[in-house]
């Protein structure tokens, strides 16, 4: 290839990703006075954050004055099966109320109760009604508010621009390289710091709530420059995805349905969750239907098992279906129709009503929904410093779903949107500080950039005949069947072999057409990160020989005290992933005491 002149831009901070985390980071970095660019691979406002439904968790205590950061901290740690980074959980619980109120200062309009403050709703694993929300379209309100606030802050936005590789100089971040989707032309950013806010990798699974964007780009880019990944074995399977018709399988049904009164039933009409209450949550969970229903009226009662943390509910549904008590389409029933008035349902869950009506011909005010688990959220990702969000490579920061730590082995619903705001802001802040303190000039290695460009164009010149869509479908099949909700060593090893074969096949991908807005080519390039994400997740899943949170091993069905003390860390050495187990940071006694309190 002839030496191509790359379109080149220079900034202090490049924020990759324009969901909640990226937008909040860019706003902050720019407010700190550093030159900031925001890069995203879809149009602005279309990131995953826009799809979030249920709400933002923040212990504002508007509905239950008893709520405060300590209770939120405890819920997050327990939901994460005590594997969450305690410091992140603390910061998150302390700062999220301010971040929510800040959105209101920027124009967001949350739903209101009678006293005029922000209304909060119930979600799984949260002791009190805690989620600030707007019906079931909270993410839309959040991303639009941030987006409209950001456009007036002098941030340069690069839309439909896909960054593929990070550049380093003597071990420090010095830039990023990728392409414009519209023209297919390359683009080179020189910068002092990169904030990764690229989200997760759930598109590696077949039944998923995630969009085409979730190919694990941030995780792979970070690993490629030697950053540590952590907790990659923990994938969250949301218990309630749509299951029928096949074309909508995986699309999310918000937990808000259960928060607002919906219950899970098997085909015998039993509320089966009462049979799946684990020891860990016994004291705080209702044992009878009557007790559970009383909780909806007054939260001083013990909560319904329908709202146990997601990992518990997903496994329970899985077991019911396996035991032959599932629907003909392999799901269970989620019933709100028989429990709440049509009016209430339409007001509280308008987009669920719409979604089922239009896509499944089901009227949720009259009939039960059919639901089953769907791949939803990556708890694992780039390992970061709790206070500053700094990754283990100087100049690299990560926030939002791409980062690991806050959610431990299992994320509570609503804790992601608050995570984006709290750590997005911190990422912007500390990336700006890093830039200001950085001494000396950074260089971009042109040979390396040229090599990346050649790699990225290879599919056009390939002699092979592989179709990138077929490879992607094969990977999804593999991850779904072998690295799914219930795992076992032999299958995980088989998955690793398949991933290696798919890597080989990826070299033979052939692309038709030209570089202009060519989704086949885009997918061919995304296979690199999809496979990287999948490999790291599978390796970590083999390493953790116990069951905990979003990681369930059929061959090690119990938790193991040894593994309660470690995170599994994955990092690349000489181009290959290597694993290690690293001790959790020691929690201060006053926080330990919070965890021990009953209730």
């Amino acid at each position: 290839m002839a030496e191509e002149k790359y379109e080149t831009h220079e900034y202090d901070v490049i924020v990759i990703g324009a969901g909640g985390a990226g937008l909040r980071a860019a706003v902050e970095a720019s407010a700190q006075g550093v030159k900031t660019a925001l890069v995203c691979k879809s149009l602005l406002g279309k990131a995953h954050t826009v799809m979030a439904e249920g709400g933002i968790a923040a212990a504002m205590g508007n509905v239950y004055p008893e709520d405060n950061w300590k209770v939120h901290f405890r819920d997050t740690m327990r939901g994460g099966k005590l594997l969450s980074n305690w410091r992140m959980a603390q910061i998150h619980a302390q700062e999220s109320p301010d971040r929510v109120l800040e959105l209101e200062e920027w124009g967001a309009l949350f739903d209101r109760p009678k006293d005029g403050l922000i209304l909060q709703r119930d979600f799984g694993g949260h002791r009190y009604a805690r989620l600030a929300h707007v019906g079931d379209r909270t993410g839309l309100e959040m991303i639009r508010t941030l987006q409209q606030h950001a456009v007036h802050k002098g941030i340069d936005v690069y839309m439909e621009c896909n960054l593929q590789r990070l550049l380093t100089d003597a071990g420090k971040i010095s830039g990023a390289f990728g392409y414009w989707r519209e023209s297919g032309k390359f683009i080179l950013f020189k910068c002092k710091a990169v904030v990764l806010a690229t989200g997760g990798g759930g598109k590696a699974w077949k039944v998923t709530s995630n969009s085409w964007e979730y190919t694990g780009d941030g995780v792979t880019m970070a690993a490629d420059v030697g950053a540590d990944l952590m907790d990659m074995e923990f994938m969250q399977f949301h218990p309630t995805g749509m299951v029928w018709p096949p074309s909508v399988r995986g699309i999310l049904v918000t937990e808000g349905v259960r928060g607002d009164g919906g219950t899970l039933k098997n085909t015998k009409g039993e509320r089966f969750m009462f049979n799946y209450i684990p020891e860990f949550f016994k004291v705080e969970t209702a044992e009878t239907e009557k007790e559970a229903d009383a909780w909806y009226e007054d939260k001083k009662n013990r909560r319904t098992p329908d709202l146990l943390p997601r990992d518990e509910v997903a496994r329970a549904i899985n077991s019911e279906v396996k035991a032959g008590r599932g629907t003909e389409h392999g799901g269970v029933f989620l019933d709100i129709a028989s429990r709440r008035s049509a009016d209430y349902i339409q007001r509280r869950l308008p987009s669920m009503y719409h979604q089922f009506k239009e896509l499944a011909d089901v009227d949720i005010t009259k009939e039960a929904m059919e639901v089953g688990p769907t791949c939803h959220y990556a708890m694992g990702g780039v390992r970061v410093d709790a206070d500053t969000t700094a990754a283990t490579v100087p100049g690299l920061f990560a926030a939002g779903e791409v980062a690991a730590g806050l959610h431990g082995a299992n994320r509570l619903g609503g804790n992601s949107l608050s995570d984006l705001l709290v750590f997005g802001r911190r990422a912007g802040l500390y990336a700006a500080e890093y830039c200001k303190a950085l001494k000396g000039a950074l260089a971009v290695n042109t040979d390396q950039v040229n090599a990346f460009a050649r790699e990225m164009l290879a599919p056009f010149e390939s002699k092979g005949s592989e179709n990138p869509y077929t490879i992607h479908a094969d990977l999804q099949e593999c991850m779904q069947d072998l690295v799914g909700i219930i795992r076992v060593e032999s299958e995980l090893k088989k998955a690793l072999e398949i991933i290696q074969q798919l890597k080989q096949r990826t070299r033979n991908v052939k692309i038709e057409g030209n570089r202009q807005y060519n989704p086949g080519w885009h997918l061919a390039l995304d296979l690199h990160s999809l496979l990287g994400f999948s490999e790291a997740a599978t390796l970590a899943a083999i390493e953790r020989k116990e069951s905990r949170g979003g990681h369930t091993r059929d061959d090690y069905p119990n938790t193991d005290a040894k593994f309660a003390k470690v995170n599994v860390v994955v990092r690349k050495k000489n181009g290959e992933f290597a694993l290690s187990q690293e001790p959790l940071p020691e929690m201060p006694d006053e926080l330990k005491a919070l965890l021990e309190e009953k209730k």
Partner: protein
Amino acid sequence: MAEQQVHMRLWRGDAKGGEFRDYRIGVGEGMVVLDVIHAIQAQQANDLAVRWNCKAGKCGSCSAEVNGKPRLMCMTRMNTFKPGETITISPMRAFPIIRDLVTDVSYNFRKAEEIPAFKPKPKEADGTRRMFQEDIDRVQEFHKCIECFLCQNVCHVIRDHDDNKPAFAGPRFFVRLASLEMHPLDSNDRMELIQQKAGLGYCNITKCCTEVCPEHIHITDNAIIPLKERLVDEFYDPVRRLFRVFAGK
């Protein structure tokens, strides 16, 4: 329902030109138009350009014209067509074509930048902000907008008149302006912008925008007409005018 073959005609091409091409493909139960496009992409035309994200009507990415009607492809069920009917998909007409079904919608992002930001009033004495659901219902309706730009696409002021674009914000941004004007906490004044740069006067209330809005926002009745009424009050009512002078607005 067994798999059925359907006949799709898709617009293929770029800014320089293009043509409709025919595809035949199997359709399974419950499929939407976007599923069919994806199947064609995976099996027959790897480079077929299309935008999408959520596949559930929440992100507003997959706008196109289905048999000439502006729609979200992810919310258009295949079983709404007659058996044997040829289904034609073309890109939105009001925007320049990039490739296949993907158009250049940057016009909308430029218009968004022209709207002065939300500026909140001072807080209440106790440091909180109290608002009542009745007072925000209307604005929340406007906030449902997913920026699919279908309303922009059908508005005759710009659909076939590129030359009007600099002077006209379009229905999406009338919704946005109305949401700011009716926000109980906002204190910015955008009336002059609405009258001049945003070109509200061009709108003659044909309601085409309201008809296509997938979020069922009452664009004309709830946003445009009240804005027009406010303009009348603001600029032609002498008492209000005097008040403006004194209030320094």
